[in-house]
């Protein structure tokens, strides 16, 4: 007996020894992430002031096994970099009625350094909070005269990974005040709503139980600084809204759709919980 708690006048004794080998996984680890021996990532830092539920924030990288962590430390090993390269070609390829490519307006993709770190972001002209995917499709439709990409489809997620890759190591810093505030509040409400037949909120798993095992899964804080994410489980790049959808589906709930106003708001809110962590995308997870 290692722990004795009194609950409702009742003595509850929990035998820690019965947790088998699980203790070995408990909590985030203390490893440091440096990519390509060059980009030093902040994977642990003080929680932003607006966040009441956590004192310290951790990248999901800290919760993965050493083997999984290692895959992200070198671009030659990170399978996601193949799609980043493909998107690099698309960046320079003219498409649509205007005969323009991304590069026609933005030159080299390195000019996009820092952009990922501040999205989702208020767009004054449109009068809405926009994700980077919404902005990409706005460029395609209105500047290139090209068809929009499917919100969480392959082309879009590859391009999103390219844009993340040139911001790697920069601190996530989304604005939550001013005109973005009402969207942020809406996202926060979604984060704390207990959905589905299992009646679970994001916070139940990622705020109250990070570091704990839920069956075979080691719960992280559900941060999105690493998106898009290459998952060993499905061997593809995963968009952030696809992850939201999966997590809500797992509560036996009717999910929201990728690109929906609800997920845009949720993305702003969850991104803000990670303000101060480095942009890591495309990261590697299991």
């Amino acid at each position: 007996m290692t722990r004795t708690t009194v609950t409702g006048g009742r003595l509850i004794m929990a035998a820690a020894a019965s947790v088998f080998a699980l203790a070995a996984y408990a909590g985030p680890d203390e490893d440091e992430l440096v990519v390509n021996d060059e980009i030093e990532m902040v994977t642990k830092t003080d929680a932003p002031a607006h966040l009441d539920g956590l004192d310290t924030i951790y990248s999901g990288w800290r919760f993965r096994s050493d083997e999984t962590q290692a895959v992200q430390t070198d671009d030659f090993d990170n399978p996601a970099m193949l799609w980043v390269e493909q998107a690099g070609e698309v960046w320079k390829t003219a498409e649509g009625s205007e005969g323009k490519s991304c590069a026609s307006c933005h030159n080299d993709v390195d000019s996009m350094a820092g952009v990922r770190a501040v999205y989702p972001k208020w767009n004054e002209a449109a009068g809405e909070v926009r994700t980077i995917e919404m902005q990409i499709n706005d460029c395609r439709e209105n500047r290139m005269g090209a068809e929009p990409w499917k919100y969480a489809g392959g082309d879009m997620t590859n391009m999103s990974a390219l844009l993340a890759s040139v911001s790697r190591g920069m601190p996530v810093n989304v604005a939550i005040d001013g005109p973005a505030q009402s969207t942020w509040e809406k996202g926060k409400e979604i984060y704390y709503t207990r959905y589905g037949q299992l009646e679970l909120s994001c916070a139940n798993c990622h705020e109250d139980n990070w570091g704990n095992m839920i069956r075979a899964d080691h719960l992280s804080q559900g941060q999105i600084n690493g998106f898009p994410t290459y998952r060993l489980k499905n061997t593809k790049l995963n968009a952030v809204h696809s992850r939201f959808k999966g997590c809500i589906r797992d509560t036996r709930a009717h999910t929201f759709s990728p690109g929906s106003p609800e997920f845009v708001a949720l993305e702003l809110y969850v991104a803000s919980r990670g303000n101060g962590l480095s942009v890591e995308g495309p990261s590697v997870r299991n």
Partner: protein
Amino acid sequence: MTRLTALVSATALFATVAAAETIAPQDVNYADGAVETSLTGQPGDPQAGAELMNKGAGNCIACHAVSDLSHLQFHGEIGPPLDGVADRWSEAELRGIVANAKQMFEGTMMPAFYKVDGFTRLGDAYTGEAHEGDVEPLLTGQQIEDVVAYLMTLKYE
């Protein structure tokens, strides 16, 4: 074992009778989180209960460790380990906890396994689509009884 098999077939034989006596999720009477009356009037089968701890809509070890089930991989750490749980709680209390833990522990993360209403954006199982039609509880009344019968075997002595 023979007794158990006899019990299982007896349960199957009287399934129609049992169905008539089953207390619907909306009609369960909770007193301080506990439920005195069997949901089905039929005894629970601890072996079937042990199966439910691992699989299907029960999947209790997703959140709880149980030494008695240490042959199964990956036990969760969300709720307390269930070793010796029958020393801490009565059968009626365990029935209440499994049927709807929110009655015993306000705001708990533990899902309600015998509840059919009051959900937000209820889905069609794990499809992500909206649910349509009648809602089935996560476990049937008899499955609740089976799980409770299994929990009653978890004693320290």
